[in-house]
């Protein structure tokens, strides 16, 4: 039971740690970006290759207050996230195409080309290789032709895409046509160039096409990140007048942005509006507030959170289910074995009874007729010994179907009576006997069994006490407590095993017995919903029974 709880707890801790680290890292990355922006002094340049020009054209679209820039909206598939390297070699995400297709015409050409996208020209740039399986190293697709949109890009999700496709770069082409219909349809077609297949590469590397990386591929410092960043910066002077420094956000208007920035002006850094990160810094007497949109970066974090939570719950439920169904099967063998043990003992016991009785009788006859001698005496002794053992066995095996009757048992009476009865024996063995028995301690149960329990405990005490024995019986809050202690030679520690069948801790020929007495006690107490326990402390054995 506890093992399961421990495992569940461990799982919960692990998943929580994963998520916490994830979010912390996201925050840190966001910080890196805001720092970069702040370092460039609130200028438009983020950590990457943006330039003013870049802004103007898309801004032109945005500032109209339209939300046509669907960059953030298109984040149904967060793969456009620059952190996701797969994007570069990705095959299956058509939305990616849509994202870039729908108007982020600031995709930076490798080699730092001015983003003169709308011209449909890719001077110096390699034409993107369309992800068509049938064009291995194939012809340059003729991009700036009106039929691009709706054309090849949607073929992305097909599986047979040779790994050397550069998805992103393909994106640019449709862009040209959709956004600038006015221009592109008549734009001159770039000259066809022939491209030799640059060698297929099975493991998904851009075999042949190498991005001339300026900066990193992933993370807050990546090339793509800086140019895909959505943010705004406002500068405030001492009077609280705000002035736009850069505006590349799509969720708010400029007025709203100004208001937003001014509300943050007294802070330093942190999250705002859940998915935005801000930083406040001063420069030249002005206070700059930069707010960047981290929604795309946060999306995977939340995704992981959901996955881990759901996954964790599923795992826990599954394991509990398994436990419930299999648990029973697991315990069955143990229960069976226990029951069989009892049955076996009972059977043995039955088989021995008659023969012993007969041998007893015959031995006596023998002695009376033939005279006693060593052999007959010995036989007599052994048979008596066996008889005693079998009787003990018989008394002490509890089968479910023995005559059990529930009745009110006056424990106090019987305990005191038995103790007094055995007092002589205690005296003989020089054991001081003390007891403190509350009167009228009554119990519902099988009388016969409890008598035996008491007898057994007293007899146990007689056998194993060194010099002192004490018995305490009382009732507390409707629970009966029976304590026995005696001094002992056993070492300190818990000794619940004395209640096991056939276990005798101190082996002594005289005491004999099959080691069943205390196991009987345990069985009876258990069957009345009680508990037994034993431990040795400071040389004193304490046995405790709760009912």
């Amino acid at each position: 039971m506890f093992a399961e709880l421990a495992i569940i707890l461990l799982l919960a801790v692990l998943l929580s740690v994963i998520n916490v680290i994830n979010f912390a890292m996201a925050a840190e990355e966001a910080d890196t970006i805001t720092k970069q922006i702040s370092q460039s002094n609130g200028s438009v340049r983020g950590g990457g290759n943006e330039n003013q020009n870049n802004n103007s054209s898309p801004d032109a679209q945005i500032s109209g207050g339209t939300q046509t820039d669907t960059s953030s909206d298109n984040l149904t598939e967060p793969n456009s996230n620059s952190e996701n390297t797969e994007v570069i070699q990705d095959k299956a995400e058509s939305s990616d195409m849509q994202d870039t297709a729908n108007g982020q015409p600031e995709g930076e050409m490798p080699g730092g080309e001015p983003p003169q996208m709308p011209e449909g020209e890719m001077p110096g740039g390699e034409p993107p290789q369309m992800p068509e399986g049938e064009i291995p190293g194939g012809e340059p697709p003729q991009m700036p032709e009106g039929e691009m949109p709706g054309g090849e890009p949607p073929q992305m999700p097909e599986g047979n895409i040779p790994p050397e496709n550069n998805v992103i770069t393909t994106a640019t082409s449709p862009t040209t046509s959709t956004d600038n219909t006015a221009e592109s349809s008549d734009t001159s077609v770039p000259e066809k160039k022939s491209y030799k297949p640059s060698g297929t590469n099975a493991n998904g590397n851009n075999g042949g096409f190498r991005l001339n990386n300026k900066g990193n591929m992933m993370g807050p410092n990546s090339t793509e990140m800086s140019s895909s960043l959505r943010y705004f910066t406002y500068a405030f002077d001492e009077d609280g007048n705000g002035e736009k420094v850069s505006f590349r956000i799509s969720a708010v208007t400029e007025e709203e942005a100004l208001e937003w920035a001014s509300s943050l002006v007294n802070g330093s850094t942190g999250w705002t509006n859940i998915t935005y990160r801000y930083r406040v810094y001063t420069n030249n007497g002005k206070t700059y507030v930069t707010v960047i949109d981290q929604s795309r970066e946060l999306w995977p974090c939340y995704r992981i959170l959901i996955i881990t939570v759901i996954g964790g719950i599923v795992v826990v439920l599954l394991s509990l289910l398994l436990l419930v169904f299999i648990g029973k099967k697991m315990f069955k063998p143990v229960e069976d074995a226990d029951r069989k043990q009892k049955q076996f003992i009972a059977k043995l016991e039955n088989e021995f009874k008659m023969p012993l009785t007969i041998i007893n009788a015959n031995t006596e006859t023998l002695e009376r007729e033939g005279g006693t001698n060593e052999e007959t005496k010995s036989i007599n002794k052994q048979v008596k010994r066996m008889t005693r053992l079998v009787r003990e066995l018989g008394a002490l095996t509890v089968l479910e179907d023995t005559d059990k009757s529930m009745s009110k048992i006056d424990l106090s009476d019987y305990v005191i009576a038995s103790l007094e009865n055995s007092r002589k024996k205690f005296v003989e063995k020089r054991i001081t006997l003390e007891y403190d028995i509350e009167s009228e301690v009554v119990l519902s149960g099988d009388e016969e069994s409890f008598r035996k329990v008491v007898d057994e405990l007293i007899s146990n005490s007689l056998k194993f006490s060194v010099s002192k024995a004490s018995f305490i019986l009382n009732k507390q809050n409707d629970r009966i407590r029976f304590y026995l202690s005696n001094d002992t030679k056993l070492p300190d520690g818990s000794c619940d095993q004395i209640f096991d069948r056939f276990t005798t801790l101190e082996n002594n020929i005289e005491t004999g017995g099959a080691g069943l007495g205390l196991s009987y006690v345990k069985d009876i107490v258990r069957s009345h919903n009680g508990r037994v326990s034993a431990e040795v402390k400071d040389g004193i054995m304490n046995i405790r029974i709760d009912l």
Partner: protein
Amino acid sequence: MKILIAEPDRDFLHAFRSLLELDGNRVTTIFDGTQVITKLAAHNYDVAVMDMNIPRISYKELVELLHKKNIPVILLSEKRIGIKMLCDDVLGDAYLSFPFLPGELTELIEKVVSTLSSDEKLRFADAEIDIPDMKLCTTVPVTCEETEVFRTLMNKGAVDSKKAGKYISSLNHKLEKLNKKTRIRYLMNEGYRLVT
């Protein structure tokens, strides 16, 4: 004494016949319930020792038969003699469970015979045992052991709680069932006593 032993195990019969005859008893052994009837028709016995597992006929019937002829019956049981048995079974005049020492049987035989030969009533308060009917308050049967315990207690004698424990309990149960006020309780410094 004329003793009738009814027991399916023949080795048992041999062993105890030999032993009991050494004491000068006349022993008749039977291993089949039906034989009891035939023997009874022809002879009389002082005491009968019967295994509760006698075949062919339910031992209860046989006990009734024997009681009709005023023959006390000692029942041999494989199971331990429990309080329940003493309260519910209520047929035998004495019970003995396997395994036992031969001495125990001979003692019991003597006890049973001597107890039932007397004709007396034991009374304490509202509890009364009728010998040789062997009935408590004329309705509930009691065994010889219980009778002996009762007698001892009446005489304020000492009773061994270990040996007599179950008889004390069974007597208490029977008294309770009869709604009598008499009970057997353990009194400090005195031991078990009949009390009301």
